């Protein structure tokens, strides 16, 4: 699989590409999307198959175990029969053991095949998942690149239009800094003004010191009124 970074770099490298030209043609994008869909379908099917096969693997293992138990049982029976000189019965047991061993061989064969299928399906699932992940990542990168190209186009159009034609970076920075300095200067000036006019004013300081000021307290007023009344009387 060729690297998506390589493709993108080729597509982006100046000159070869017309402005706004797609990184990946629409047909290739469609193929990719289709491959992702196919891989997802395969993945779903493989997962279902795996579930079924693993179920029959469990059943197969159980059958094999059962056959092995049966064989052991009939072998023991055959021995017991021989000890009791029941030749005919012993022979029947031996025949049964023979049948069971044939069946066991078949079942073991099936079980081995099932195990191989499980391994194969697991590998297939892993492969599908990888395909999906890689293709989705690649498509994402292609689409992002296309968005960036669109944005670049917008940026170019916007910055070439309007009064502020592409300024050089250093003068932009100088202008911004000058403007910020101006804002700070304004703030300083405002502070000076505030100190002169506002809470920091001379009158205020005097008032705070109890000199001058026009703060007429109720007791002052009352005192004045009393003074006035006394003068009259």
């Amino acid at each position, binding site marked *: 699989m060729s690297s998506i970074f390589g493709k993108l770099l080729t597509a982006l490298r*100046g000159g070869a590409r017309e402005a706004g030209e797609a990184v990946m043609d629409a047909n290739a994008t469609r193929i990719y999307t289709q491959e992702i869909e196919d891989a997802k379908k395969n993945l779903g099917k493989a997962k279902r198959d795996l579930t079924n096969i693993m179920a029959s693997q469990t059943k197969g293992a159980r059958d094999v175990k059962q056959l092995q138990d049966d064989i052991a049982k009939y072998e023991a029976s055959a021995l017991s029969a021989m000890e009791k000189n029941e030749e005919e019965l012993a022979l029947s047991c031996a025949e049964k053991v023979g049948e069971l061993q044939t069946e066991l061989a078949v079942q073991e064969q099936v079980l081995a095949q099932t195990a191989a299928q499980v391994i194969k399906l697991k590998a297939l699932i892993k492969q599908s998942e990888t395909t999906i992940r890689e293709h989705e990542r690649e*498509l*994402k990168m292609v*689409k*992002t690149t296309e*968005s*960036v*190209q*669109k*944005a*670049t186009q*917008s*940026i*170019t*159009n*916007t*910055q070439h239009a309007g009064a*502020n034609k*592409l*300024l*050089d*970076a*250093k003068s*932009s*920075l100088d*202008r*911004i800094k000058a*403007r*910020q300095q101006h*804002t700070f200067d304004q703030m300083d000036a405002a502070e000076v003004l505030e100190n002169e006019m506002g809470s920091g004013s001379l009158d205020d300081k005097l008032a705070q010191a109890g000199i001058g000021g026009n703060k007429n307290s109720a007791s002052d007023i009352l005192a004045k009124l009393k003074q006035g009344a006394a003068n009259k009387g």
Partner: protein
Amino acid sequence: MNKNLKELMTQVTTLDDEKRGGLDLSFEIIDEQVAKVTVEDRDELPIFITMADDQLLCICSLFDESQVTPESRMAMFESMLSLNIPMPLSSFAKMDDRYAVFGAMSLNSSAEDVALEITTLSDNSLDAIEALSDYLN
């Protein structure tokens, strides 16, 4: 979540002051997928927001190739690569012949996250030009 660029940008620009780092932001929609954000007092360095396939890209164009002193390109690249990791939330990039700083975000980012991205990107762009000015004409 925020599939609509205009809606998202309206949310971002009307956030409380402290969520915008005290910077006033205004925006205009340039085409359906690209918004231009102007940061107060920084008109020369607008930030472009674009909705890509599954991410939000915030891009601030710094300067173009014609402004780079040709013999210092390599040194500038080295500086850019070295600054890339320390620079908060943003990385250096090149688009056609334009150098930029950018940040990529999830489409599910909140307005607060986008505002932080924009103000950080704006601060980064000023610092970046200053840091790289030795390599510029």
